[in-house]
């Protein structure tokens, strides 16, 4: 048999009381490089082995708080500095809204960091090449027995003395464990080439896949269906009537609701003769007229028809409506001006319906009368 290197001497115990006792005695004897293996954590073992308390709590605290502050800082930067927007009327820095995300990031960073620290830093995992793996000892302590393993590299180690000691404290099946070939060469370095290689490959694969997905695949059907949808866009060519826009003009002769075709376009004199104001100057009609006049006419003509409107200086002011000419126009002639516009004035046909137009003319007449009152009005 080739010269195998000894890793440790192991012993098996049957009950929790025995293993606690064995651990205590081993620690008291002065051994430092030893281990106790149990299928589940046994209460009081930490004290029996005189182990110092685990520091992982501090890892959790530090990583957790780092997560909280990082989340807060990032959200602050994104929402206050980089691209501030007013959302829902909330301030740029809506702290209560940040609390849920801060909390979640805290838990996430603390959990991941603590577990990774435990596995990588404290346990130096993954490590499937430890001397104890694949031994009868490991099979027993995995199942229903408890064991102590005293390692050869302990300064107080002496093969015979250890075997005797283990027998004295009640150990059974005292067996030596030797290193297998691959185990002896096992160096547990986190940065070994295979692992780095794996990371590089993973990085290339993930970033490559993301690039291909986002820039190539998403431009193929069916993802393009949303970009080119079966709907009509107003400015596109129309598929039914070639040479026209999809947003077709109404058919010639179309009349919109509440409007009738105006028969006197371009014919002011005929309008003046043909049309008569159907409304009586009642309080209601004058009130309507006043409202519409103030809305539509006053910006240019002023509130009293004198042409001194609030647009003075910015827009050519119209001549006063109290002139002889206008006072002598019929209601129909004024109606024509509303419908067609005149010089700079546009058509107001679409702004008022027929009743409103006649009511406005009534009101205008009232205004005109106010500056040219008859003797009898004052009595």
């Amino acid at each position, binding site marked *: 048999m080739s010269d195998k290197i000894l890793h440790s001497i192991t012993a098996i115990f049957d009950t929790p009381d025995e293993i606690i006792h064995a651990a205590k005695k081993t620690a008291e004897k002065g051994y430092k490089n030893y281990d*106790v*293996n149990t299928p589940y954590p046994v209460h009081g073992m930490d004290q029996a082995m005189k182990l110092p308390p685990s520091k992982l709590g501090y890892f959790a605290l530090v990583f957790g708080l780092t997560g909280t502050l990082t989340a807060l800082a990032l959200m602050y930067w994104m929402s206050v500095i980089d691209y501030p927007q007013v959302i829902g009327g909330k301030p740029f820095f809506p702290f209560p809204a940040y609390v849920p*995300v801060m909390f979640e990031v805290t838990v*996430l960073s603390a959990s991941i960091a*603590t577990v990774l620290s435990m596995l990588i830093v404290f346990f130096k995992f993954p490590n499937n090449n430890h001397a104890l793996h694949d031994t009868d000892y490991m099979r027993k302590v995995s199942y229903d027995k408890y064991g102590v393993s005293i390692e050869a590299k302990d300064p107080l180690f002496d093969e015979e003395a250890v075997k005797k000691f283990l027998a004295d404290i009640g150990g059974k099946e005292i067996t030596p464990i030797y290193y297998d070939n691959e185990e002896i060469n096992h160096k547990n370095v986190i940065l070994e080439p295979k692992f780095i290689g794996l990371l590089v490959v993973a990085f290339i694969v993930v970033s490559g896949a993301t690039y291909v997905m986002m820039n190539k695949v998403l431009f193929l059907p069916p993802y393009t269906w949303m970009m080119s949808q079966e709907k009509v866009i107003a400015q596109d060519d129309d598929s039914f009537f070639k040479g026209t826009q999809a947003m077709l003009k109404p058919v010639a002769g179309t009349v919109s609701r509440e409007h009738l075709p105006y028969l006197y376009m371009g014919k002011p004199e005929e309008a003046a003769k043909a049309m008569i104001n159907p409304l009586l100057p009642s309080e209601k009609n004058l009130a309507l007229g006043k409202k519409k006049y103030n809305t539509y006419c006053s910006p240019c003509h002023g509130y009293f028809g004198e042409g001194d409107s609030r647009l003075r200086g910015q827009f050519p002011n119209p001549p006063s409506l109290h002139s002889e000419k206008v006072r002598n126009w019929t209601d129909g002639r004024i109606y024509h001006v509303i419908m067609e516009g005149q010089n700079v004035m546009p058509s107001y046909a679409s702004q008022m319906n027929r009743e409103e137009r006649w009511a406005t003319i009534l009101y205008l007449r009232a205004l005109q009368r106010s500056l040219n009152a008859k003797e009898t009005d004052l009595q």
Partner: protein
Amino acid sequence: MSAVDYSQELSVVEGKPSLRSIDDVIVKPLESKPDKKFYIALSVTVSMLGIGAISLALSFYYGTGLWGNNNPVGWGLPIVNFVFWVGIGHAGTLISAILFLFRQKWRTGIARFAEGMTIFAVITALIFPAIHIGRPWLPLYLLPYPNQHSLWPNFISPLLWDVFAVSTYFTVSLIFWYVGLIPDFASLRDKTTNKIKKLIYSVFSLGWRHSNRHWQHYEMVYLILAGFATPLVLSVHTIVSYDFAVSIMPGWHTTIFPPYFVAGAVFSGFAMVQNVLIFIRKIFNFEHIITLGTLEKMNKVILLTGSLVGYAYAMEFFIAWYSGVQPEQFAFMNRVFGPYAWAYWIMVSCNVIFPQLFWFKKVRTTIPLMFVIGVLVNVGMWFERFVITVTSLSRDFLPSSWAYFKPTLTDFGILIGSFGLFFTLLLLFTKTLPVVSIAEVKAVADDAQPSHGGH
């Protein structure tokens, strides 16, 4: 009636099994080939999953017009199902983490299974936000990464808080579950003779050696994870409730939503866990590990959380009246007497009335009865999310916008598919991983700990 002797501590594991037999009985399903019953069950769940897959494929092809979502009920079954499944997941974390913090030993028989259910429930839940965002193939827009639009996600929106919350919940639950599995993978590795299985178990066990120097850190990390998972699970369904409560909708904007949703989640989760465990313990002969006492305690939790939900209903009604806010008062009258009254009464009877039967020990300890009540609780909780979401939307501030929402066949297909996914994953789980934590149950068996307490 037999008198209870309060001076005696009840065994967590009945029958004083040896560590050996615990190990054997838990590992047995993994070593044996699946039998006919398994395949029948699997074919049922996979068919349900298939219905869901077809419904989803149709939804992708034809668009979300296939669903019932429309104006005014823009949030329909996808959100209801999402909240339902996330809620079911909560029982698992509560059993693993919160009962661990309370040092309740009876959790050991069910913790592994419940955590697995959490993970599967969250996976199922995640389908829904994925499909009901406009372009499911661009989900990364939800995350804050530098992009060409120079845009960041809206951190003020509770829907974004949901992204963080549910993904954190999934990640941490997965880590917690995995950390618990490491010693069991090691035990499986040392027990199996199949070369391929041994390789797989070795890789996943990371080389665990059952060393006490490792157990020491392991227990600390387990405690830390439990300590984090507890507020995490409360926060997840709280943030889900914020989706509704931050709005100004009558029936949605009430401050009691966060603890009400959390209680409701635990309520439905425990009912689901109880239902599934009734089958598992029978099929795999775990009756002495997942004891009737365990089931009874779970039913007590169901009773407690059901009462909390009932309290929340009462508070909502009272304050709706007390506030004098008419839209709020109308919203609640509408729930009781409006077009969805049928859903409302299903909800109230299943959530408030039937669980009260658990006051009686006879009901708590009779398996068929508790199973039925568990099913009713889940029905009631689904309807609760339906009532909250749909009634408020279908009749809100503007009467001219009122409409009656009807889910479509596609909606139901996706819902059936979600149950299919959940139960398929669960069935596969029973055959690939130990559904009971070997190490934890060994640790609480009688005579497993040293007699003088070790202190």
